[in-house]
């Protein structure tokens, strides 16, 4: 029988997923530092929900449970969703979003390798559409909050929606810079005056830019480890920069500068961790460039003209639909064939 090759040298799926999780760790630490330890609770909640849902679905679908739980793909989905949610999201929001991501967006489509859409972004989009108020209400970074919630306070708030006595919700939350920019721009305020608000930092959101920087660090680690290809983040960030640069150049009073767009919202999380999901993304090098660039353009357009403050989730989901088309039309030239 001919069963060569007899040798292999490849990281397993579990190792790949583990490295993705590892790359998220700096971002999580920065997040916890800026917004408090509540994110840890959210991540644990999402992880447990994802693993239970995955196991139950695998059992129902009569698939081997252990090897598929060990591939850690459900954990990656859970972490990405948890990081996309507002830090003080109530527990049921986390559970509903994770269940939707794992059960419907992933397992009902056939499980690992078969989902056409990014499961974390499906979970996020469902929550954003269903519970827009909760989903856009972010706590202020601890350095800006009038009242600083401790870890236990956050735990209580997540599970019981109880704040410490005498503390009002408004005291711990604030609009995100992207949201604030959008609403203020609608009032025809100049960007330069808008960004004078305390929630704006040097580059993006105050505090948020540190988290973003940590994501960049993790993302570069993934590129170095060849877990993700350079095409996706490069094209995404380049397109986002180009779009914001064009608008900023035309009217700097009305549009935020490119650096702000790069360092705000989920730009870098998306560039290195979300559009790089291999299953729902294209496989050809050119396809990756087009996919990521289009996602970057869409992100900017949704941020600037759409109904939601950030456009990453919708941009990615829309582009997921184009993946088969991109793959089919960006086949590289085969050795010995003409272009």
């Amino acid at each position, binding site marked *: *029988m*001919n*069963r*060569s*090759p*007899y*040798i*292999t*040298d*490849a*990281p*397993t*799926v579990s*190792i*790949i997923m583990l490295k993705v999780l590892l790359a998220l760790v700096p971002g999580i630490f920065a997040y916890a530092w800026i917004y408090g330890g509540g994110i840890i609770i959210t991540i644990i909640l999402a992880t447990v929900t994802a693993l239970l849902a995955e196991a139950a679905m695998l059992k129902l679908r009569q698939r081997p449970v252990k*090897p598929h739980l060990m*591939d850690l*793909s459900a954990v990656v989905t859970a972490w990405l969703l948890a990081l996309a949610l507002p830090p003080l999201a109530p527990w049921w929001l986390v559970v509903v979003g994770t269940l939707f991501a794992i059960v419907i967006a992933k397992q009902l489509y056939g*499980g*690992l*390798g*078969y989902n056409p859409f990014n499961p974390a972004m499906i979970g996020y989009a469902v929550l954003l559409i269903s519970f827009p108020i909760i989903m856009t209400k972010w706590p202020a970074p601890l350095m800006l909050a009038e009242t600083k919630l401790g870890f236990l306070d956050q735990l209580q708030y997540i599970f019981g929606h109880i704040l410490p006595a005498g503390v009002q919700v408004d005291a711990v939350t604030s609009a995100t810079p992207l949201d604030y920019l959008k609403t203020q721009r609608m009032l025809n305020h100049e960007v330069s005056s808008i960004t004078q608000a305390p929630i704006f930092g040097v580059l993006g959101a105050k505090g948020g830019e540190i988290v973003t920087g940590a994501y960049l660090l993790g993302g*570069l680690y993934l*590129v*170095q480890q060849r877990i993700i*290809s*350079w095409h996706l983040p*490069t094209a995404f960030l380049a397109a986002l920069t180009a779009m914001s640069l064009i608008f900023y150049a035309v009217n700097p009073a009305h549009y935020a500068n490119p650096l702000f767009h790069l360092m705000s919202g989920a730009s870098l999380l998306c560039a290195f961790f979300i559009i790089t999901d*291999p*299953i729902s*993304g294209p*496989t*050809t*090098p050119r396809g990756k460039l087009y996919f990521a660039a289009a996602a970057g353009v869409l992100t900017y357009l949704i941020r600037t003209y759409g109904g939601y403050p950030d456009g990453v989730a919708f941009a990615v989901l829309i582009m997921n639909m184009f993946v088969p088309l991109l*793959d089919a039309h960006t*086949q*590289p*030239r*085969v*050795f*010995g*064939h*003409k272009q």
Partner: protein
Amino acid sequence: MITSIVQFASKLIRGNDVALPLTDMHKFNGGVHPAGHKEDSTTRPIGKLAIPEKLILPLRQHVGHIPKIKVQVGDYVLKGQMLAEAEGNVSAAIHAPTSGTVIAIGKEVIPHPSGLPDMCITLKPDGKDTWGALQPLDWRNTAKRELVASLRLSGIVGLGGATFPTHIKIGADGKSHIHTLVINAAECEPYITCDDMLMRERADEIVKGMEIVQHLLGAETCIVGIEDNKPEATVAMRDACKTLTNVSVKVVPTLYPSGDARHLIHLLLGTEIPHNQRSTDVGIQVFNVATVLAIYRYFSFGEPAISRIVTITGNVASPQNFEVLFGTPLPSLIAAAGGAKTYTTHFIMGGPMMGFDLPTSEVSITKAANCIIAASPNLFPPPPPAMPCIRCARCADACPVSLQPQELYWFAKSDNFEKARDYNLFDCIECGCCTYVCPSNIPLVQYYRYAKSEIIAADMAKEAADLARERNDFRLARIEREKLERAQKHADRAASAKAVDKKTEVAKPETSSSEIENPATSSSADDAKKAAIVAAIERAKAQKLVATNVADSPTEKTVAAETATTPENEAIALKAKQDKQVLIAAAIERAKAQKLAAAQAGVAPKNIENVSVAVQAEINETDAIREKAKQMIAAKEADETL
């Protein structure tokens, strides 16, 4: 980390995947760097194996036709004597590796993935190792045609593993001019070191062989391509061809599969052979180092192909290269390497990337056997269970042909073979790089092998079906034609018979047959019916007549015979004659009626008023095919008469 940042930055700047250039080579996409394990078998020089107890020589040791056996059981043969001669052009001869007696000609297990037995000649060596008459050729002063013809008798085939008969590669002149001879010394598969050791020890002979091949091909330049993991071989080769002009030794980076002929050409010359062409179409021919050495030995000493260098490595006590006579049983080779160590499960022929499991260790060494690896679970652990494809495209990054293995996998898995073909499945060289890098442990190459074999089988089945259909159409057309011919013959006969009728003026059947005298005017089914009735009446009449004749025949016949001369008897004879004529006439009428019926059947045989549209369409289609076939035959006949 720093280098990767630099690389990342350079990627950002340059916009494509660029490796830091090792040499001025023309890179191809992908490739992998498996651990070489070459030093295992290069510490010892090439050993010589003692003549074994018996030699089992499979007839099928090369690509092409099986050679024709020229010896019988019991024959005594000398070393180098031809045992089987090349049959047809693509074939190679088999020679006796030593002197001895042919003890068996029959089926034995051969080293092939199928594990099926095949024809072999078994030789019992006499231990004297006596050469037969050797006929060296002065290649410089002999016509090329003669040299190529002589090479056909040498039994030399490509020793890199492809085993394509060498005389064809050299004799492929006339079509296009070969300007460059590439000597493949890349030996990119792990574990294999036979070419490496050959170059270290016998570089002079290799270079002499290169000269011969270059001369035969008329190639202006010759380039030797060696991977940079063989510095000793490179030095030896450079030393050996120092004095030669137009010969260069180039070092290529160690990157599997650089030893693939098309990829080596690309690395060395930057030429990409179009997928539907051969390297000779662009003036390049590739030979393996061991093959050119065999050519040198053949022309300079008259030695045919009787041995080769084989690497025995893996889980054996002392891995080494040996010069092994073809037909040597594998156990002798294993014993020479100190025997297989514990935990050896089986043996692999070829390298770990493209080799195959030997069906048993009781096979013999053939012209294709460049390497034998003793396998153990430690060396080649069984692959973990396959996981779903996560579309990470590592396989696409590794594919040296720039295919999209993940897409091909989907198509092969879902039996979507047409799509697989569209995505250039047949450009896959089965190098195994995709499987090597797959995080999901999917045996991708096996899916491609399966898809290829299914497509080839389907193509063959389709071809057979087409042929059968063509044959059936032809048969139908032939039946139709024969029917018409028969009818024509009957008509001719009827016409001549009528002429006879008129002459003899037999009145009786004429009245009744008048109705069907003009078949041209009677074309309705009614007429056919009438004709049939008339014919039936005629038949009945004739039968009656016969019956009456038969009734009084016992006496009549004898009387007629005895008294033929009497007037009475003459009258009887006349009557008999007349009866006979009536019979003939009746037969003619019958034939006429039949012909008419047939003709009408030909014109309007089908009750197509009452059939469904689909059936009607089918009938029309069949008619069209028949018509076409008829025309074809007519045209063919016309051609033949011309």
